[in-house]
Structures are given as structure tokens and as C-alpha cells.
């Protein structure tokens, strides 16, 4: 018989507000096995934990039930408390009377009644709990960072500086990500390339970092500390270790009409290309969709001009298997497509551009060498209209936009407006906004400088329609503060497109079994307290794949993710999850039903000798679970026709006791 202690937490007024905690503690006193029942304002506090520890020792408790917040919050805390008092940590059960009771019910009688049932259910389970011992598994001391933007770069550098090996997988031919495309960065206006490219060089030269560029992750197996990852290294038809990046081939290639994605299609590149001058690795790549040699077998100019003999038209995709202890997702963002926003005439006029395109136009290394001209006729625009929140905060138009705020647009629009007025003081700049949101160090000062010192016109109101008229653009908008309609002519319109997670994030999340929210951003283990960890152990989050953020925030989050990875890799052994499947060899008849449904291949069979009647020996085939591989989903327990398979910590008897307690 267990000796169970019940601890009811008030959680200040969070629980005590709608649940009569004292009545709950009193009612649970009489449940079978309960020898002690207490209540306290904050069970998770130091004093609360001491109270539990003292009770365990004083009453010689063999199991405890804490009626408190969600086990997802403090199960770990109370397990540690129990362990410190000499109790097996798996003799602890949590009754979730906050998230699933006090917070959703207003009536005290109703809340109290439910809390008692939830407490009773947890007690019924603890009565059948058995001490569990976690197995240990070794840690592969190497990290994988998926994505080579500023988030991935910073994470990799921080991990590598701590002495661990890091691999970066980047789908593009170069690392650098979106930041490499930017001109200047707010609020300091230092040039993005000047602060990013030295970091890219650091990555390239770091002895602990290996870059897999033009590559993608195609399969992830294993678990925390022991991931096995398959990386597909796409054929770039150039030998990476031989190419010197001289760029001669990119000048001589006769295929000149390839839209340059680095400049968002605003100019052309060759079929063999290096994305930009400071690319890392600085290696040429042949685009198989445009290369005449690869398509028709006739050309070969690049091979002829290459003095290093680096061109290899026969190169094939390569699949590399690698082991990692931790994985960081840093897949970043993209501006949403403007195709659906017909009202802004993006597809109709070349002079309606997105902010990222504007960024390239202003960039000295961009398609116009930094000269701000209209893409249609190359003339200098006299009147520029910026439209904010295009697709952001778009709850009413969720089918084409996003409900969330993209966070960075207010600031980069202020930056664009300021830079334009600075470079071309004769230009008239108007910004249409819903709200200007500038939380951040020196952000509001920056916006006010744009509006006050640089004379940018800020108009509160949304643009309703933009229509090309002759070589001008007619902007129809409302001025909410003046309460009037505005018709305004513009030479150039810049749309602050909402940002969304990169399309590669969703399949990656499936491979990592990491969860995502409805917008395809990765979810955190806890939105406030564990913001850089995924709920899936060993998977960490860095940058915009977790939510929209600017560069300073991305860099700090990257460092935080690196710290978490270092903390994991610094361990020699990891404690596993003891809640794994277990087969009762006396009941198992070796039918293989469990093996078929196991997603991890954790079940094997062995022939075992059993003693039969009359001194005979029987050899029977029985299932055996590899506890290091089993993740404890319990699928096999249901597939087992003889009831031999059970899940430790979530045993059939325990769950049925819970069912009984609820239905009582």
C-alpha cells in the first residue's frame, strides 16, 4: 500500500480564486492511500518545496500528488523536489487544477468539485505508480545548425567558440541569408554587409565549423544527444575544394539572361554564378535550369576558361550521413507573395515594389549600384509612397495575409524613408500606416527623427487602391486623423510585405517532430521561460523561424540557443525517458504485432528458454524492447493482442484507474 501525500497549491489567486483549495485538500484526505494532505500559497516556491520535502520525510511518503498548474510547467520541478527528499521522481503525479480547471471555470463550487475529481484521479494513478530508473545514453558532441542566415551564423559561431563542432546546412550556394541582401540596418544605419561579412568569414575560417552550402536536410532519425541526419548536397557542378572563386567563368558564360534571385529578379546573372562578391564559400555554382551544357551538351565555355579545372558537369547529388547531439532550426523568413494583393497593382506595374526590392535598389552592390530609380524607366522618382502592414495584422483578410504583426516593417520603412530623404532631399516621401510600432532601444527616437528631422509625411490610414495611370501611380487612401479620402500621385510605391516562415520550415518540423503554430512558426517549449527550445528535446530555435524579429533580437536569440546547445553537449551522458514500453515475457507469444507498429524499430525478438512441465525446456520467441531507442509512445501496447506489452509510467492499469476515478 502506498503512503501518499497530497499538496494543493493556491498559485496565489490563480487557483485559489475559483477553487476552494482548503476544501480540496480536506476532501482528498479520505482517498485511498492518502496519509497526508496540505495546502500552500506557492508550492513551487522554495518554501513550498521544503514543505513537500519535510512531509515526505516526516510521513514516510511513497508517492505524492501535487494539485497545481500543468505538468508541462512544473512536473520537472516537483520530481526534483521528490528526488531531493529521497523519493523516486516518478512517484510524483500532477493534478492540473490551474490550466484545466481554475482558469476556465468561474463558479467556485464547480471549480472545486472538478479539482477534487482531478486530484482523486491523480491519486488513483499514483497508487499504481512504481519507481522508475532512467537509462543513460551517450551524447554526440557535435551540433547541426539548419540555415545559414545571421541567426544560424551567430549560433554556429557561439557553439564553435565553446569548443564543439558545428555543421551549418544552407540551401543557397552561400551563407548570409536575408541580412546579406540588406543595405543599411536600423537604428544605427550601419551597413549590413560591413557587419555581416566579417562574421561570414569567421564562420568560413573557424576550424570547428563546416558549411554544407547548396544542401538540405532530407532525413532526421534518432533522439536528443543521438540524432542521425542525412544531408543532401546538391550537385553544383563545380568542385568546391578546387574552385578559387576567381569569377572568370561567371564573366564568360554566354547564358546571360538568368533572373538574379539575389537581386530579386531585378537584374540578370549568368548560368554559372557566385551570388555576391563576399559569398561564403566563394565558389561558383552552375544553375542546371539554364546551363546550355547541362541541358543540351553543347557549350562548355566555363570548363575551358577555368584555370583550376574545377568544373565537373558529371557531378551528382551527394547524400551524407552525419551524427549530431543537438539540432538548431534557423530557417528564417521570406516576405509573403504580393500576387494576391491585386489592389496594390504589384503585378501590373514595375514601379510597385516590395521593401526588400527597395533594399536592393538602395544597395551600392545592387542592380542599380545604389541609385534609386524607377524600375520601369530608370528615372529618379520624385514622389515615393510607402505602404505599411501589407498582409500584416490582416485578421479580416486571413486568406491572403497574416494575422500577426511582422514587427520589423515600421522600423525598416522609417529607415527607407530617412535614407531616401537623406540621399535625395528633393524627393517627397509619404508613409501610410495603421500604427507605428517602435518598441526597442533607440527605435522611437529613430522614427521621430524620420518624421521630424527628415520631413517624412506620416499619414495614419490604409491605402485602398493603387492604379497605374500613364507613367504615374494613383494612390487612393484614407486619412483617418483628418477623416478624409486622399488621392495622391506617386512615382514609386513601396509595399512593406508581411514576413512569413520559410517554406522549408514545415517539412523540417515534420522531420524533427517539432511542433509548429498555425502560421508555421516553430513553437517554443514555453513562450516565456523556454523561448529558444522546441518542445522536442534536443531541438533548438534561432531567429525568425520562431517568430518575426529584427537583427538585434535574432542575434541575442541565436546566442541563447547556442548556450542551450552548449549546455547539452557539455554533458557526457543524458538521462533518458524511463517511461518506455516493457513486454511481459510470460505473456508474450512472439506474434510480431508490436514490432510492426513501432515507429522507431525499438522492438526485436529473441528465443528464450523457459522451464516446461516435467523438467522439459521450452524455447519461445518473445519480444524485447530496446529501452534506449523506445520513445514511449505506447502504440505497441494497443497492438499487442495478449496484453503483454505495457508502458511504464502510463500503464494500462494506471490509465484505467484514472478512468474509474473520473467516472466515479
Amino acid at each position, binding site marked *: 500500500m502506498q503512503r501518499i501525500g497530497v499538496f494543493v497549491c493556491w498559485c496565489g489567486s490563480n487557483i485559489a480564486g475559483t477553487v476552494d483549495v482548503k476544501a480540496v485538500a480536506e476532501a482528498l484526505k479520505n482517498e485511498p492511500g492518502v496519509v497526508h494532505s496540505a495546502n500552500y500559497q506557492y508550492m513551487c516556491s522554495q518554501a513550498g518545496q521544503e514543505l513537500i520535502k519535510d512531509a515526505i520525510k516526516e510521513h514516510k511518503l511513497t508517492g505524492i500528488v501535487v494539485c497545481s498548474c500543468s505538468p508541462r510547467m512544473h512536473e520537472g520541478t516537483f520530481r526534483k523536489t521528490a528526488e531531493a527528499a529521497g523519493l523516486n521522481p516518478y512517484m510524483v503525479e500532477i493534478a492540473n487544477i490551474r490550466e484545466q480547471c481554475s482558469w476556465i471555470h468561474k463558479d467556485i463550487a464547480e471549480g472545486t468539485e472538478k479539482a477534487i475529481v482531478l486530484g482523486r*484521479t491523480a491519486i488513483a494513478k499514483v497508487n499504481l505508480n512504481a519507481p522508475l530508473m532512467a537509462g543513460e545514453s551517450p551524447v554526440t558532441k557535435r551540433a547541426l545548425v539548419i540555415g545559414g542566415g545571421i541567426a544560424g551564423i551567430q549560433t554556429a559561431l557561439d557553439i564553435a567558440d565553446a569548443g564543439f563542432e558545428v555543421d551549418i546546412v544552407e540551401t543557397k550556394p552561400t551563407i548570409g541569408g536575408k541580412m546579406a541582401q540588406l543595405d543599411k540596418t536600423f537604428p544605427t544605419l550601419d551597413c549590413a554587409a560591413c557587419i555581416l561579412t566579417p562574421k561570414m568569414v569567421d564562420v568560413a575560417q573557424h576550424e570547428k565549423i563546416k558549411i554544407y552550402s547548396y544542401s538540405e536536410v532530407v532525413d532526421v532519425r534518432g533522439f536528443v544527444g543521438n540524432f542521425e541526419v542525412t544531408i543532401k548536397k546538391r550537385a553544383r557542378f563545380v568542385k568546391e575544394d578546387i574552385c578559387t572563386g576567381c569569377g572568370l567563368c561567371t564573366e564568360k558564360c554566354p547564358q546571360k539572361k538568368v533572373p538574379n534571385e539575389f537581386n530579386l529578379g531585378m537584374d540578370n546573372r549568368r548560368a554559372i554564378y557566385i551570388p555576391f562578391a563576399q559569398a561564403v564559400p566563394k565558389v561558383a555554382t552552375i544553375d542546371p535550369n539554364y546551363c546550355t551544357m547541362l541541358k543540351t551538351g553543347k557549350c562548355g565555355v566555363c570548363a575551358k576558361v577555368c584555370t583550376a579545372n574545377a568544373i565537373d558537369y558529371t557531378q551528382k547529388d551527394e547524400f551524407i550521413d552525419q551524427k549530431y547531439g543537438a539540432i538548431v532550426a534557423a530557417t528564417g523568413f521570406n516576405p509573403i507573395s504580393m500576387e494576391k494583393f491585386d489592389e496594390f497593382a504589384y503585378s501590373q506595374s514595375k514601379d510597385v515594389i516590395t521593401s526588400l526590392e527597395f533594399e536592393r535598389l538602395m544597395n551600392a552592390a545592387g542592380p542599380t549600384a545604389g541609385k534609386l530609380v524607377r524600375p520601369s524607366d530608370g528615372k529618379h522618382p520624385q514622389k515615393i509612397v510607402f505602404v505599411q502592414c501589407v498582409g500584416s495584422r490582416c485578421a479580416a483578410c486571413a486568406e491572403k495575409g497574416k494575422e500577426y504583426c511582422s514587427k520589423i516593417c515600421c522600423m525598416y520603412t522609417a529607415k527607407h524613408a530617412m535614407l531616401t530623404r537623406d540621399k535625395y532631399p528633393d524627393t517627397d516621401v509619404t508613409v501610410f500606416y495603421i500604427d507605428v510600432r517602435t518598441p526597442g532601444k533607440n527605435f522611437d527616437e529613430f522614427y521621430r527623427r524620420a518624421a521630424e528631422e527628415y520631413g517624412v509625411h506620416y499619414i495614419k490610414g490604409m491605402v485602398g487602391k493603387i492604379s497605374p495611370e500613364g507613367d504615374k501611380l494613383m494612390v487612393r487612401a484614407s486619412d483617418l486623423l483628418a477623416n478624409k479620402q486622399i488621392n495622391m500621385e506617386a512615382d514609386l510605391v513601396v509595399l512593406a510585405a508581411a514576413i512569413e516562415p520559410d517554406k522549408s520550415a514545415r517539412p523540417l518540423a515534420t522531420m524533427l517532430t517539432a511542433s509548429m503554430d*498555425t502560421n508555421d512558426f516553430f*513553437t517554443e517549449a514555453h513562450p516565456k521561460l523556454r523561448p529558444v527550445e522546441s518542445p522536442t528535446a534536443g531541438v533548438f530555435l534561432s531567429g525568425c523561424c520562431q517568430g518575426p524579429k529584427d537583427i538585434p533580437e535574432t542575434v541575442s536569440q541565436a546566442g541563447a540557443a547556442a548556450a542551450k546547445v552548449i549546455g547539452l553537449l557539455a554533458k557526457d551522458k543524458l538521462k533518458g525517458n524511463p517511461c518506455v514500453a516493457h513486454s511481459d515475457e510470460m505473456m508474450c507469444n512472439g506474434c510480431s504485432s508490436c514490432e510492426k507498429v513501432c515507429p522507431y524499430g525499438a522492438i526485436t525478438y529473441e528465443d528464450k528458454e523457459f522451464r516446461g512441465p516435467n523438467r522439459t525446456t521450452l524455447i519461445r520467441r518473445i519480444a524485447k524492447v530496446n529501452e534506449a531507442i523506445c520513445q514511449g509512445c505506447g502504440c505497441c501496447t494497443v497492438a499487442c493482442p495478449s496484453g503483454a506489452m505495457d508502458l511504464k509510467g*502510463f500503464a494500462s492499469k494506471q490509465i484505467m484507474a484514472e478512468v474509474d476515478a*473520473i467516472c466515479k
Partner: protein
Amino acid sequence: MQVNEFKPKIVAFCCNWCSYAGADLAGSNRLAYPAEVKVIRVPCSCRVNPMFILRAFQRGADGVIICGCHPGDCHYTSGNYYTRRRMALLFSMLDYLGIEKGRTRVEWVSAAEGAKFAQTMNDFVQTVTALGENKRLEDLRCKK
């Protein structure tokens, strides 16, 4: 005159990774749903043995709902596919035994769908309340 309102007993099995977190989110966002719903946490929806559901009905539950990750998003890769097929079979058998289809349900609720969790539970409780008390499989010997 006091009206004795029927309050159904609902057992909800929620997988630890998606739906249980979804239920927590409903709580964090203070989205109310009836107190009749009591959640049992399981590692994966595929841990739910048909036996548990029969047991619930035997012990007097009026409705049983199983919530898991969306198809394709299972933390254990494929668990919820098994749930879907197993429960389709079980529910059709229960229907044959006289446990109306409205009393059983499988629903996919992700960790981000607190609102969906609350809405699902409101809807399910309403359906089960309309069906009234489950007398079909209830074992009165269990009610001492």
C-alpha cells in the same frame, strides 16, 4: 421547483505533445468549456487502448473524446494514424452496440489551437448532453 439539470461525464484523452498543450493554452487564454470534461494525459493518442474507452462507458461515462496531433504532425511520427484507424473500427462497433456515434469522437488539436480545444469541448458536451445519459454499457454492479 428545482430543475435537476443533466451533467454528462466526459473523459477526454489528450496526447502530451499537441492536445494536452492545446488544453493548457485554452486555460492560459481563459477560454471556458464545461467542467464535465476531465482530461487524462497520455503520451500519444495511439496509447489509448479501446479497452479504456469500453471501461469508461462501463463505469458510467456519457462520452469519450480522444485528441491527438494533426495527421502528419505526430510527435512519434505515425501514432495518430493508428489512432484514426483503430477508433474508426471501435466507434463503428460501439454504434452497433447502441452507443450513439455522438458519444465518441476523435479530434486533432495542435498545441497552438487552444480555441479549437475549447470549441471542440463545448460542442462535444452539447452533443452528449442532447443524447442524455448513457445507459447502454453502464455496469450497475460498478456503482456500489
